[in-house]
């Protein structure tokens, strides 16, 4: 028999990413006729553990206090030991798309003698192998990879997967005592950027700005527009690299993957790497001076005009409509 494991960070709880990863794990476990094991790295609150035991056949808790603030070196060791405690018989080990999961995935695969893959949008078994679908060439192509060694360690574009269904009976919960070495790279400080409003990944409306804005000040102008429609603000890599807005505003291949009901791209050309981050938006609107900008091939409506002319007027009109 072969099972599927999903690794969850205790401090993140059973968030949307964990739900999606568990959902992907359940589907895979069913296809191989195995169990779904949830491995919890670090202390988790009771609610999260209960939610996990409702969807998994087994929950293995690595609740060591030193894992409360994640140290990547120790999280990796913890994952390794939890997999061993779970019996070690895994076809796949799935992780979410948070920073910590992303950096430990290839290392875990190496330690287990398996294959690793990043940012999978779909997975399935084909015989003994896992097939993982993701984008390639900065979003210009879609590729399917055959992972040849087991287990397949894959971090997923987790929010895109259906949450795991609850099972008839709750999975057994076991605490595992982990033996963790002192990390050789130690996180000593965190400057948590206070997120005003909701996280970009969960925002229903996003107003993003790009290099065409020409500087940091116009983002204030865009803020007024965003406020008028209850939107969060994002940006292209070019705007972030210029230092106009913080790096965590970046949407795209190597930024946030967002999926709002409405995404408004202002002075953004629509490079494939940017589209990759916002391609799951339901409706896209664009404001750009260049009618040939690629963004116009990926939006439902837009206006070919200087943002300086459009944004103040648009904000005024939308404020009036909101009444």
């Amino acid at each position, binding site marked *: 028999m072969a099972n599927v494991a999903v690794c969850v960070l205790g401090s993140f709880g059973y968030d949307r990413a964990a739900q999606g990863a568990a959902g992907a794990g359940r589907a895979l476990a069913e296809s191989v006729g195995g169990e779904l094991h949830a491995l919890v790295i670090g202390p988790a609150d009771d609610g999260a553990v209960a939610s996990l035991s409702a969807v998994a056949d087994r929950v293995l808790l690595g609740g060591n206090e030193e894992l409360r603030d994640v140290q990547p070196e120790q999280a990796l060791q913890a994952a390794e030991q939890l997999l061993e405690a779970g019996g070690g018989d895994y076809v796949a080990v799935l992780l979410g798309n948070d920073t910590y999961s992303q*950096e430990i995935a290839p290392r875990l695969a190496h330690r287990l003698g398996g294959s690793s893959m990043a940012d999978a949008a779909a997975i399935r078994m084909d015989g003994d192998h896992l097939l993982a679908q993701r984008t390639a060439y900065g979003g210009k192509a879609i590729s399917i990879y055959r992972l040849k060694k087991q287990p397949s360690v894959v971090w997923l574009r987790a929010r895109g997967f259906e949450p795991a269904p609850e099972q008839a009976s709750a999975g057994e919960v076991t605490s595992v005592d982990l033996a963790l070495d002192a990390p050789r790279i130690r996180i000593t400080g965190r400057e948590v950027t206070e997120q005003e409003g909701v996280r970009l990944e969960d925002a229903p409306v996003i107003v993003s700005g790009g290099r065409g804005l020409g500087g940091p000040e116009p983002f204030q102008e865009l803020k007024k527009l965003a406020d008028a429609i209850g939107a969060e603000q994002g940006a292209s890599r070019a705007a972030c690299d210029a230092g106009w807005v913080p790096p965590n505003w970046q949407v795209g291949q190597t930024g946030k993957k967002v999926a709002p009901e409405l995404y408004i791209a202002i002075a953004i050309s629509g490079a494939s790497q940017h589209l990759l981050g916002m391609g799951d938006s339901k409706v896209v609107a664009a404001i750009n001076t260049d009618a040939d900008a690629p963004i116009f091939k990926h939006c439902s409506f837009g206006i070919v005009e200087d943002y300086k002319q459009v944004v103040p007027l648009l904000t005024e009109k939308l404020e009036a409509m909101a009444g």
Partner: protein
Amino acid sequence: MRVLVCLKQILDPDVPARDFEIDPAAKAAKRGGANLVTNIFCENAIETALQFREAASDAKITALCYGESTAEDCLRKAMAMTVDEACLVQRDGNPNPDAAAVGRVLAAAIRRLEQDGGPFDAVLVGRESGDWGTGQTGGALAEELGRPLLGFVESLAPGNGGVTLRRQTDVGIEVAEAEPPFVVTITNNEDNVPRIPKTRDVMMSYRKPLRKLNLADLGLDDEEIRNGASSFEVEEIFVPSDEVECVLAEGDTLDERVDQLARKIHEVVASIG
């Protein structure tokens, strides 16, 4: 301090989508008229290393690439950016080897360079590459070397006895203390935008040492790298057709056009409730 930066040569990721084509037999992009360039995150890594050297004064930077002979251009450019020396591990007839295989080659090369010139305190790789971009090489390399790894680092600075790292996470910036030797993957921020080489430094780059090695020099055999280390292969690759019809605002006056836009936006926002 010795710092090593791993560079990968890739097909220019800025080729417009309309010029992008897949070669179905090779299961890879057609080269077409596109240039070969250094992966952008590798250039961010060079810039980060250069700034570390400016702060640590005695640091020496080596660039390493496993690639075709065309990759010499990337290494020359790195030296024009004032990297001290470079090494090319020659690759031919082995397209798209995966991260596990590349990690093994890079690790073997690093050990060889360390035998001759002493240990590298820090190894820098890009967070992911702009072609296949799986971002798995750094992790594979760290494990091959048995060294710790921190991802998404934006700067390195001399710290209390070690090196202080700043890195980007989902929740904000994290600061870390690292004992050499270690591996980091580099991401972009406003401070590590790659510098443009000065003309004088471009000339100088041709006087700097560029060492060439092949797999046999590293005690590796091509067959082993191809079959033994490789952990995945491309099953299928295609170009999605996801273009949509865009309705542009029309009307004689700006006010009319913006009004149309406002109504459409209002409609969507109102439907979310």
